[in-house]
């Protein structure tokens, strides 16, 4: 579905315009795509350039200018539900295409056969896009309930806050809050381990050094080891306790 603009004045909807052209013009003169016959509107007031699913609003040096969501602007990258104001008129921009970062079919890469020529000086592309697409996969259909459940869980944010407290040596008593995705422990060149914060918990993994860290007295080897509340970690002679903050 193409994006559209809904023209209204004083809350009353006047007309709906699909943005199915590469360039949609707004102005008082009848040759515009969206004609607003009002003296506060310049004869050629503004234009909207649409490239596939993105639309860009541009003021064409109008006398009274325009605003988006209350802020005067010359050029604006339109987002769903933006309200363009021209005088007393409002144009609401609706684009219910999901932003790719949240869409389930996010990963479909496609090929644009004719590269779009865009030169900033000439303004925007004039010729219609010749878009021939190759889907990166048909596997999208397999985005089934089980999988989406998994993803929801996987991206369900962070585990509870946790801390590593040093138990011996000169830094005894010091606490290290595990607020980053990765935290390294130890001395570079001697022995280093990394604590990874993942959605389902914290994991310690050996990075470098001749010996492996121990958890509760046993060596963790090469593999990541999930930490439990009050586990005792030892590496490079330093003893530490891992615990969740409550």
């Amino acid at each position: 579905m193409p994006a559209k603009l809904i023209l209204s004045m004083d809350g009353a909807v006047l007309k709906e315009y699909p943005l199915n052209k590469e360039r949609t013009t707004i102005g008082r003169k009848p040759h515009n795509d969206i004609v607003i016959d009002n003296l506060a509107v310049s004869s050629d007031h503004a234009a909207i350039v649409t490239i596939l699913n993105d639309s860009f609003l541009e003021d064409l040096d109008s006398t009274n200018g325009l605003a988006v969501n209350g802020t005067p602007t010359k050029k604006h990258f339109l987002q769903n539900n933006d309200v363009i104001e021209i005088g007393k008129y409002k144009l609401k921009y609706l684009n219910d295409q999901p932003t790719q970062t949240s869409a389930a079919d996010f990963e479909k890469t496609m090929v644009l056969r004719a590269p779009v020529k865009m030169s900033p000086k000439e303004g925007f592309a004039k010729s219609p896009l010749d878009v021939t697409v190759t889907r990166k996969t048909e596997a999208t259909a397999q985005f089934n309930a089980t999988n989406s459940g998994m993803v929801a869980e996987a991206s369900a944010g962070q585990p509870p806050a946790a801390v590593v407290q040093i138990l011996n040596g000169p830094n005894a008593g010091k606490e290290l809050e595990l607020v980053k995705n990765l935290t390294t422990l130890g001395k570079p060149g001697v022995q280093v381990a990394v604590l990874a914060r993942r959605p389902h918990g914290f994991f310690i993994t050996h990075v470098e050094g001749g010996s492996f860290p121990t958890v509760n007295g046993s060596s963790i080897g090469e593999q990541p080891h999930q930490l439990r509340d009050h586990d005792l970690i030892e590496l490079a002679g330093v003893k530490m306790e891992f615990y969740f903050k409550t």
Partner: protein
Amino acid sequence: MDIHDALEIVSKTDPGMVRSHNEDSVTYDADLGLVVLADGMGGYNAGEVASGIAVSVLSSEVRHRLQDAHPEDLDGAGEELGVVLLRDNVKKANLSIFRAAQSQPQYAGMGTTIVTALFYDDRVAVVHVGDSRMYRLRGDEFESVTRDHSLLQEQIDSGMISKEDARLSKNKNLVTRAVGIDADVDPELHVHEVQVGDIYLLCSDGLNDMVEDEDIGTTLQMLQNNLPLAATQLIQLANDNGGRDNVSVILVKVKGRYTAPRGWWQKLYSWFGN
């Protein structure tokens, strides 16, 4: 230093959390200093076929030609063989994929992105087509070495959209160039100086679409002394963030200089040395 000793290379590829099969292909040859990563597209298994052809053409052809020649040798037109090999074989892969797609209906329209690099003479030659990337970590600085052939990148370049606004775009994942889609392809080629300590990351968009550049850079910096773990960690990050696409990474760490022998006596010496 011999290229094999000067570089440490690891690669890892994963289908991700959503897809049932992996359409990425990766390979490397530590004796040549060659790395290849391709991200295929097309229905059924055509994506895997396309990326597989690209990777095998590149690795076998380059290996074959370098059996009795050096990448720093100049050809008749004064171009280095290393550069010529990468560019010509991306074109060759393009034609193979294009022909396969034309002759087999189930492969119609298949294609692949590619990023491939050859390390020689203290430099790296990089060729890419599409949105597979190469990044470099040098000291604290982590940056992209390649620029995507994508609609979004063109919009950024033409000033229509700012880098910050780019993540709001609904036009992601539209590549403007791909291997195997047309009879000809225009590979982009650059040669960069390499420094000891540099780490190069080649990846498919399954990584950089799911993980912010900053997080990729931090991970590499923290785990640079354990490349296999760094590769595993990057894939884990992409999967923990949703893993919506196949994820592939190749990491190359420059441990020493690998200057090509100049002059006949050095060549003779290195010949005896082998």
